[in-house]
Every structure is written in C-alpha cells, then in structure tokens.
C-alpha cells in the first residue's frame, strides 16, 4: 500500500489515485514524417525500468489533477512527485533503441532515497 504525495493536496492513500504509466513520452511533433518503426516505438515500446522510473498518477478521488512521480520500481519507494511540465528532479535512466542497457547499478543518490517523498 502506497502513501502518495499529491503535489497539490499532500500525502494520501493509494486508493485515491489512478495510474498513468510511463511519463515524459512526448507525442511526435510531425506524425506524418514517422516510419512504422518509429510509430511502434512511440505507441508500444516502453522503458519499463527496474530502478528509478518516472511515471504519471492522477489524484482521482481528490483534486483530479495529473502529476508525475519518481519511484524506484525495484523497491516501490517514492523518491519525489512533481507537477506536469517540470523536469524530473533527478536524471532518469532511459534506453535509446540500439543502445546497450543503462548501467543497472545506476544508484539513486543516497540523500534522495533516504529522504523519502518530497
């Protein structure tokens, strides 16, 4: 059971929230210019990170506003929540197609992990 800090309302129980999956996936600026493979990447492919992960939540039973969160998917610890439009407060590992994996030891900074939610 999570306690999630809505940036607008403060900390609430998980049951008040809905989940929106991976954050910061921008809709392609020029959809007509995309190849099928690029469309597939946008529509279907996901980073699905084990570790620090940026994701969207909506405070359905509260202010009904969307926001982003950084959570460690290996421990379920929330590191931070932040409003839509802001950059993530910590760098988030991303996998670019064709690249080798991000370093799995990509550690969450001690102060951020220890500090819990913002």
């Amino acid at each position, binding site marked *: 059971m999570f306690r999630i800090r809505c940036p607008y309302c403060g900390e609430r129980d998980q049951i008040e929230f*809905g989940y929106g*999956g991976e954050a910061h996936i921008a809709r392609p600026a020029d959809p007509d210019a995309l190849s*099928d493979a690029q469309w*597939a990447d946008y529509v*279907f492919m*996901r980073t699905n990170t084990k570790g620090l992960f940026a994701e969207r939540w909506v405070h359905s039973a509260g202010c009904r506003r969307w926001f982003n969160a950084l959570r460690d998917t290996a421990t379920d610890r929330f590191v931070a929540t932040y409003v839509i439009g802001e950059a993530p407060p910590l760098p988030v590992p991303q*996998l670019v197609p064709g690249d080798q994996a991000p370093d*799995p030891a990509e550690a969450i900074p001690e102060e951020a992990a220890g500090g819990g939610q913002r």
Partner: protein
Amino acid sequence: MTRYSFWSLLREGLRGHDGWQPVWREAEPKPAYDAVIIGGGGHGCATAYYLAKEHGLTNIAIVEKGWLGGGNAARNTTIIRSNYLYDASAAIYDHALQLWKGLGRELNFNIMMSHRGVLNLAHDDNEMRQLKRRIEANRLNGVEAEWLDAKQVAEYCPIINMSPQSRYPVIGASLQRSGGVNRHDAVVWAYARAAHDLGVDIIQNCEVTGLKIEAGRISGLETNRGTIRTPKVASVVAGHTSVIGAMAGLRLPIESHPLQALVSEPIKPVNPCVVMSNAVHAYCSQSDKGELVIGAGIDAHLSYTQRGAFPVIEEEIAAVLELFPIFSRLKLMRHWGGIVDICPDASPIISKTPVKGFYLNGGWGTGGWKATPASGHALADLVARDEPNAIAAPYSLERFTTGKLVAEHGAAAVAH
C-alpha cells in the same frame, strides 16, 4: 534415469524412502555451450527438454538466478485452458493442452494433471454473446468448448451463487471440459529431470548480468559465476524480460506489473472445477490439498517487487464472495505476488531479435502457465532452426510494427 513406477514407490515405501536419488546434478558452468537458456522455470526447462529431445542439441545449459521453478512457475494458479478467440492463440494454447494430456506419461512424472473443467461465467447478455462467439470460434479451430445455461451451471458447480437477486446474476457460462489445473513444481521438476537426463546442464544461483554482442551477433553472456561463450541465447524469463532485453539494447512492448494470488485454509472438496468471471473479476479453483486458490487482476502500477497493494486483495475477496457466499468465513492462509510481463495485445512474444542468435520468449502476461509445453516446444524449434514455425510466427516482435496484433484481451480478461 531411474524410472518412477508403482513398483518403485512400493519398494521405497517398504525400505523407508532412503533409496531415492537426486534427479539432476548441480552443474558448474562450462566455458562454452551450443546454446544457453536464461530462466529455469516451466518454459525454460521445457525449451531445454525439447531442444535436446527433438533437435539433438544436448550441449546446452539452463541458467537460473534463483532456484528451479521459484519464479512465476511457483506463483501462478496453474489454470489450464485453450479457449482463446483467435487462430494464432488456438494454435499455441491448444497445442499446449494436447501436450499436457500426455505429459505425465512422456516425462514419467506425476504432474497431477486434472482435467476438471473451466467455467467462464456470463453475467449479462453482452457477455453471453461474447462467450458464445468465442465458443463458435473455438469449435472452428477444433478447440473443445460448449455453452451451459444457468441451470446447467448450477449442476456443474453447485456452490456458485445463482440467485437472480445477486448484483451480477449468473446467466450461463462457457465450459471447456478438458481444461483444469496441475501441479506447478512437478511440471518444472519433470521437465528438468528429463532435460538433465538428455545431457542438459542445470545451473542454479547463476544470474545473468550482461550479454556479449559482437558485430550484431550474440557471442556469450556474463553471469555472477563467470563468462559463458555461446552462439545462441534464449531469454525465457518472466517478470524481467525488459531487463534482459535492455542488456541487448532492445526496447520492448512490455510493462511489468504485480499480480497477486492467495489461498484459503484447506477444506473438504467443495469446488469441483475452475470458475472464472470477467465481470465480477476473480477466479477460483481448489487444490488437491483442499485450499481454495484465488486470483484476480493485476495491480495498476509497474513494479518488480513481487508484492502488490491491499486494495487489490480487498477487491479480489469481494469478488470471490459475490460468486461464492459459502466461503465468507474461511481464513486465508497465504498470499503472494508475482511480476507479470504484459504486452499491449495480451499475447506473448516468441521471436528472433535484431541481435542474431538472441531469442525472446516472454510477455506472457497473466497467463503463461497453461502454454508451458507449447511455448517450450515452439521456442526450441526457433532456436534450433533460426526460423519460427507456424505456431511461433504470429508472435514475432515485428507485429508491433506491422500492426498485426493478436488482441486477446477478451479471452485473457480477468487474468488468464
């Protein structure tokens, strides 16, 4: 390999069971193999067995980061059925069902396969039409399925709440009589024992930490027990397909979610079959020990923690009690979560990848157990010939680019 039989059981019974031998040897990783399978669950062990048996590839290894059958093989609810909608699904799931029927004999191991029947309940006219459509599709594909009206449902499984006053009254169900349940660890052990007998190395406590790729081709893998050279690697993990894929630089159409299940205290036989309901959102069977085995939907969030949240359990229990008010005073004994790799179309991936010699079998979502024999069979064929057979072909990674999805959300539904 010592054959198991009634006589061997009797002999050991009379001499205090001190003559049983270990059925596989703890292998040290060799420097090189012809092929390596990542993941020692049901699918991985089945793949190794069919590679050795049908393709003569015996200089191979299974590397498993924990112990054999300790991942999702140990965490699922062992429901077997093949009543999916599309041709591609019928081909693989019914192939599995046919293999299940003879598997205990073939592997000389009691996998406790029980074809007790699977009911998929309909609670309104639309669900009834969907289920009847699926029954017709099943029959066209030679998959056994039939429709039961409310009276027949009550006769087949008398403990279901058939009251017309209930919130979601049961108006009928599809029934697959050959569906059922089996024993999860027996299946893994049976495949491992048979594969080991054919020469396969089984290496437990061996976690893959990286893949070695040279000029677009796999050349080996790094593990916590050293480097292994091999021209072929098959990833057959559950819950970590994206993590292994990322080692090869692949972004995959997979999201990993917790899926929770629970069992009640053991009681006398009361539930004669498997009951699943999409609308009420739960499924329930009874194990041979007498425990009710209960499952429901996934937790919405991504996680690798093998645990979910309490609200999902609450919904799960509410759903089961809606169907079976008779269970209301039972105590729960155990509860656990597994991580399921879910594809956007609720169908798996059995595929070559852009890295030559690296094969993927994963994304089975909430329902991989039932497919275990066919999954291993099809992947072994793919690894041996480097070409997918007719069963594996629809499950390629390319389908997410071409758009030729195998959209089985209707048949997968509550969790398959």
